[in-house]
């Protein structure tokens, strides 16, 4: 259905929530009218520092950001990647002191929403409130998936799993299609997210390319062997809780059907 508030920056949040469950027109309008203070940021800038106390949440409108922890000798663990429509520090609504840093990975535009505004929205529109709560739970699901990857998967499986996750998340908000998606981050970022070294990431990327599974070129991922990648990484998209269109549910055993060529449209029914 056409939406009358596309010009409003909070439309990215509408799109994100709509990717989780269908909103009514009133709910869409209320979300789109959230008061935002929009700010453009350069890449590699902190938005929230570890220990900061917040009275607002950050809505990502453009670009990529990450949450991270720093330990001694400059070692960094990236805890999560975030894409437009995400509220990466939504938890500050209830836990105002951040126990992580939040930083841009690329040039980005963010909108800051006062906690009071979000709380008022959630009270007036309980469906929106439950979706915000749900998005925090999904955030925790993704953290669990990453924990399993770092604890038990091989470097190859981990990279494959993260690429599948990234494609499906971006596809759900309309920023990826035809087995292609942007990946505007460095190999060091990937390494810090996966608990690997950039040497390992570089090796895996070359391996993925030589096996005709994924090619990374000019910050774009091209999936040449989607089903094989799902199989190798044992990827089950359940944890992403993407809205189903009610047909052709994704199956982790899809690899049994063999590799599809890029451009195959079956996946669009998944998200």
């Amino acid at each position, binding site marked *: 259905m056409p939406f009358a508030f596309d010009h409003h920056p909070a439309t990215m949040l509408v799109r994100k929530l709509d990717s989780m469950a269908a909103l009514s027109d009133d709910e869409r309008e209320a979300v789109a009218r959230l008061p935002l203070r929009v700010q453009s940021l350069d890449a590699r800038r902190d938005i929230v520092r570890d220990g900061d106390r917040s009275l607002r949440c950050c809505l990502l409108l453009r670009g990529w950001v990450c949450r991270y922890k720093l330990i001694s000798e400059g*070692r960094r663990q990236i805890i999560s990647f975030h894409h437009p429509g995400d509220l990466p520090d939504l938890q500050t609504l209830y836990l105002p002191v951040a126990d992580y840093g939040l930083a841009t990975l690329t040039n980005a535009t963010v909108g800051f929403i006062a906690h009071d505004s979000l709380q008022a929205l959630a009270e007036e529109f309980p469906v929106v409130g439950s979706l915000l709560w749900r998005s925090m739970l999904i955030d925790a699901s993704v953290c669990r998936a990453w924990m399993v990857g770092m604890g038990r998967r091989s470097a190859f499986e981990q990279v494959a799993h993260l690429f599948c996750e990234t494609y499906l998340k971006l596809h759900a908000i309309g920023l990826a299609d035809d087995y292609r998606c942007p990946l505007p981050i460095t190999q060091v970022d990937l390494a810090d997210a996966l*608990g690997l*070294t*950039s*040497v*390992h990431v*570089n*090796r895996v990327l*070359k391996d993925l390319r030589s096996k005709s599974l994924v090619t990374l070129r000019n910050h774009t991922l091209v999936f040449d062997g989607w089903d094989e990648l799902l199989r190798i990484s044992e990827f089950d998209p359940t944890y992403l809780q993407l809205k189903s269109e009610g047909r052709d549910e994704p199956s982790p055993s899809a690899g049994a059907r063999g590799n599809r060529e890029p451009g195959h449209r079956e996946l669009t029914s998944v998200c």
Partner: protein
Amino acid sequence: VFADELLVAVLVRLSDDHDDAAGMWFLEAGFGRINARCQPSFSNLDAAQDWIEQQLAV
């Protein structure tokens, strides 16, 4: 790399596949007191040896 006749580390010279890091020495594996989760690359073997000695001295 051996210390007191015990294998403590394996260093690998990075090939041209590794772009800016090509030619550096990568800690492929560390044993015992060498932190296997921290795998730095070194510009030369002296730097690698210094780092390994520091780790063993901790």
